[in-house]
């Protein structure tokens, strides 16, 4: 198995990344309400996945490298997810201490 992708694959990935950039900027002009955020972040995540898999050679690396590459993003999900459980649920129970700065 090769350790790196071929320049031809790099070019294809680069074209895909440019297409996704055009798509994300275009999608921002389409009013989708709260789904605009989801679409923009989903496209950003797919672009990041392409970069990690091909440009960073993770696709051709060992399982252990996969685990190390995914670990950082998992901890990021914990950081964002658990923070969101606090701030996005405060208004569920009205209380003067929920938003003390208002």
């Amino acid at each position: 198995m090769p350790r790196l992708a071929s320049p031809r694959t790099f070019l294809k990935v680069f074209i895909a990344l440019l297409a996704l950039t055009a798509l994300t900027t275009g999608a921002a002009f389409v009013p989708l309400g709260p789904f605009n955020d989801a679409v923009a972040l989903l496209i950003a995540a797919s672009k990041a996945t392409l970069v990690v898999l091909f440009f960073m050679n993770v696709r051709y690396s060992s399982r252990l490298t996969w685990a190390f590459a995914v670990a950082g993003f998992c901890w990021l999900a914990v950081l964002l997810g658990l923070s969101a459980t606090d701030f996005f649920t405060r208004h569920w129970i009205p209380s003067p201490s929920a938003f003390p700065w208002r």
Partner: protein
Amino acid sequence: MVEAEPVGPHHTPLREQFEALGQQREADTLGMWVFLSTEILFFGGVITSYMIYRSLFAPAFHIGSGHLDLVSGTAMTVILLASSFTMALSVHAAEHGLRRRLMLCLALTLVLGLAFLGLKAHEYYHVYQERLVPGSRFHLEGPHAREVQLFMMHYFIMTGMHALHMIIGAGMLIFLITYAARNTYKNYTVEICGLYWHFVDIVWLFLFPLLYLFELRTR
């Protein structure tokens, strides 16, 4: 795990603490990914802060985002993606001992990286002229002016930290070009530096929709 590897003058030699090149390569890659994980969480902190403040002061973040130039943001994204592409080609060239192509690709990566920083500097100057830098000179009419400073604060910390990483990356590229010019480059040094460069690109892929596209999305 232990595999036979071709060894040429441009290949990283086996250091004494390793049994085989495959093992050494794995250790080098894992070490870099551990560092990159800490970097993910470093940027994760400010992204979490952005998420919370944006949920609290959505109208102000909407106004702030509207003051950023979408055209220059998109151009910076394309430039950075192109630099990642040339960096990937550099790693490929180093692996196969193609020194001239390596130098060309590294130089292109450096030029694209500097072009990104130039656009960024131009944007900072524009924001400064509009008096949108948080602080005593900050001036904006409207009901959410105070909270817009929070958006600009996030803008400067996120893009500033990213730009600092780009400057470090540019310095790294200058070293790699020097090694290639002296014909003392090693394939694995280029590959590990490539991982760093691509990571900085990934950070921007997320900063771009968060900072530049938000204004459009809530219109």
